[in-house]
């Protein structure tokens, strides 16, 4: 069973367009985190957002715990935003962070 579902699987945008990435969970969780990975690069943490709305620069995450979902909004996309965005949740009992399959974003000029 895929516990973390991400959509869309891939997304192509033109520079300056906005992106909306979705993540849904099969179980309730209060630990949600978004990560970014450049092709061939290291995973880096973008936002830790267990509930509500959090913003970091052009990134805004909204997590609705009772609906078991989280979203990541990227405003005014740039070519350097291209890469894979993964969301992750912590299962009960701690430590077992489960990842989605990711959304592959390509921003073109």
């Amino acid at each position, binding site marked *: 069973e895929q516990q973390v579902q991400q959509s869309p699987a891939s997304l192509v945008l033109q520079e300056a367009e906005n992106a909306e990435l979705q993540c849904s969970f099969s179980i309730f969780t209060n630990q949600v985190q978004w990560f970014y990975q450049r092709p061939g690069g*290291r*995973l880096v*943490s973008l936002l*830790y957002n267990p509930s509500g709305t959090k913003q970091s620069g052009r990134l805004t995450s909204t997590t609705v715990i009772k609906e078991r979902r989280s979203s990541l909004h990227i405003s005014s996309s740039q070519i350097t935003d291209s890469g894979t965005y*993964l969301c*992750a949740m912590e299962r009960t009992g701690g*430590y077992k*962070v489960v*990842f989605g399959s990711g959304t592959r974003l390509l921003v073109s000029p």
Partner: protein
Amino acid sequence: GGIITQTPKFLIGQEGQKLTLKCQQNFNHDTMYWYRQDSGKGLRLIYYSITENDLQKGDLSEGYDASREKKSSFSLTVTSAQKNEMAVFLCASSPQGANSDYTFGSGTRLLVI
């Protein structure tokens, strides 16, 4: 600032071979993790360790062993490499109970011929 280092960066092995991957961190983080990343499948947890000499199985532990002899290092052994296997193994660390401070290594790319 700290760093988490994985060695080797690339590993080519033969079928049936035992292969060891190493991970070192100097953040003084308590918890360390090994994940396997396959295309289209996200990351799957193999083993994790919450302190020195502790080992906990993840969802994909079969076919792997792990060792946490020091707080700063966590190694993963592929006990018998499978032919044509190709994957990226990622190590991560975090302070105990603080998932907001999850740091990943740059990965070890494995190819089995």
